[in-house]
Each structure stands twice: as structure tokens, then as C-alpha cells.
């Protein structure tokens, strides 16, 4: 996807089977259970979801669970039960949504405005090692979108583990 493109239509099940899709200003984060980058950034993204309660946050796990069992639906359920998740954790079993978005890594962050146009894509912030970064790029993009403006930094390089495509 390119900045300004319209979000692909999608509806994916969460760990309870309830389906979710884009609605209003929406953040879609491709993520997973087994990747250290996704895990290192998770708390910062989750805190952003709590802080921007008027924004829909969707975490999507697209990885091939056959080769990476830690990303199975069951493992996702266990994780959600064990942790405090402020957003639904969706399973993209067919990987069609990840392909439609052009997701490359976990994490890979997409921010859409209320009309469904892509306004930010990339990493949550500049450094997976520094909690002080606090998902600054994601927050900066959301602040701009909620103010009806174009983010000053619409695109950054996504950093993380490659999406585990099925063979």
C-alpha cells in the first residue's frame, strides 16, 4: 500500500471468534507471538491503544502457524488470557489481509484516517530497545490524523521479523 491508498476491506476473527474490521480512524498492527521485535514493541503499542481510546486498534497475526506453532490461534488465545490486551488480536489464517496490505514485518504499523486512507506506515518508533520512545511515530501520526492533518512523517521503514508466509 502507498500513502493515500484506501484500506482493503477485511473482516478477521479475534481470539474469541468475533470478527473485526476497520471503523473510523484505525490502526492496524501486524504482529505475532514469536518475534522479539514484536514483543519488544508490544507494550508501547498497547499503551497507545489505551491512550487513544477513540481510535480503533487492531492487532493482526498473519504468520504461518504450521511452521511457527507459537503463532497458532491457541497460542494467541493463551497470550490474550495471560496479558492485558486493550485491542483485539486477530488471526489472518489465509494471509490474504497481510498480502493486501503488503505487510512485510512484525511489527508493521498502518494508520488510516476516518475515510480509510492510509496516512502512516512503518515502525512504531525509532528504537525497539528504548521504551522511552513510547511509540512516538505512531502517536505523532495519530495526533495529525485526529487533527485532520497529514502526518509530517508519513512513512518509515518497518523493522522486525519477516512475515512468515505459507509455502
Amino acid at each position, binding site marked *: 500500500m502507498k500513502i493515500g491508498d484506501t484500506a482493503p476491506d477485511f473482516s478477521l476473527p479475534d481470539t474469541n471468534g468475533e470478527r473485526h474490521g476497520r471503523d473510523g480512524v484505525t490502526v492496524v498492527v501486524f504482529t505475532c507471538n*514469536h*518475534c*522479539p*521485535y514484536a*514483543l*519488544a514493541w508490544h507494550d508501547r503499542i498497547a499503551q497507545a491503544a489505551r491512550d487513544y481510546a477513540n481510535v480503533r486498534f487492531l492487532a493482526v497475526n498473519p504468520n504461518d502457524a504450521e*511452521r*511457527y*506453532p507459537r503463532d497458532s490461534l491457541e497460542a494467541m488465545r493463551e497470550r490474550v488470557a495471560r496479558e492485558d490486551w486493550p485491542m483485539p488480536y486477530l488471526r489472518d489464517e489465509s494471509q490474504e489481509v497481510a498480502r493486501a496490505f503488503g505487510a512485510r514485518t512484525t511489527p508493521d504499523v498502518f494508520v488510516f484516517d476516518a475515510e480509510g486512507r492510509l496516512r502512516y506506515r512503518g515502525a512504531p518508533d525509532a528504537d*525497539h*530497545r528504548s*521504551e522511552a520512545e513510547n511509540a512516538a511515530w505512531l502517536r505523532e501520526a495519530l495526533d495529525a490524523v485526529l487533527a485532520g492533518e497529514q502526518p509530517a512523517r508519513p512513512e518509515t521503514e518497518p*523493522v*522486525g*521479523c*519477516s512475515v*512468515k508466509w505459507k509455502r
Partner: protein
Amino acid sequence: MRIELLWWEGCPSTDEALDGLTRVLREERVEAEVELVEVVGDEQARAERFPGSPTIRIDGEDAVPAEAGEPVSLTCRVYRLRDGRISPTPDPEDLREAVRRAT
């Protein structure tokens, strides 16, 4: 001392791991070359007992041993830093201890 850094292209952590390892070796005044070993497929991952990228071995021993039951696969390895944070690379102090054990 034989030092290997096993890596897989699906993880962007190789350079960071190599930098950290090189720094520790320099600080410990160990003059040993780091042998970079690319793991390219599942078969090689099984043969190498590769728990993920990056894996650093000193004289054949994992510098930061994986937990028991850790699967071998083409994956990015999850390390825990000494302050509790999750990291794609090992804590430098864990590497330092491993280097000291081997010298």
C-alpha cells in the same frame, strides 16, 4: 577460541549482534575472528540445532543457552536482557560471561 555467529536472513538483528559481540571481545582483549554462518533452510537449522537468529557459539557452546525444549527453526531468537526487557540480541554482560568462561 572458535566463535561462530549463526544467522538467518529473516531477522534484521545480525549486525547489531555482531557489533555487540565484537565490542565485548575487544573489551576482553580476546583476539579471535568471528565466523559468520548463514543458516539457509530447515534442514540446516535442524542439523545445526539452530534455535533462532542470532545464535552465538563459543567453542561449540551456545553463549546464552536456549531454554530447554526451545524448537529449532528459522526464526528470530528472543533474548531477555538483564533488566528484564525483551531483545532480539543477547545482553552484552551475558556474552562477556561466556567469553570469560571460555578463556
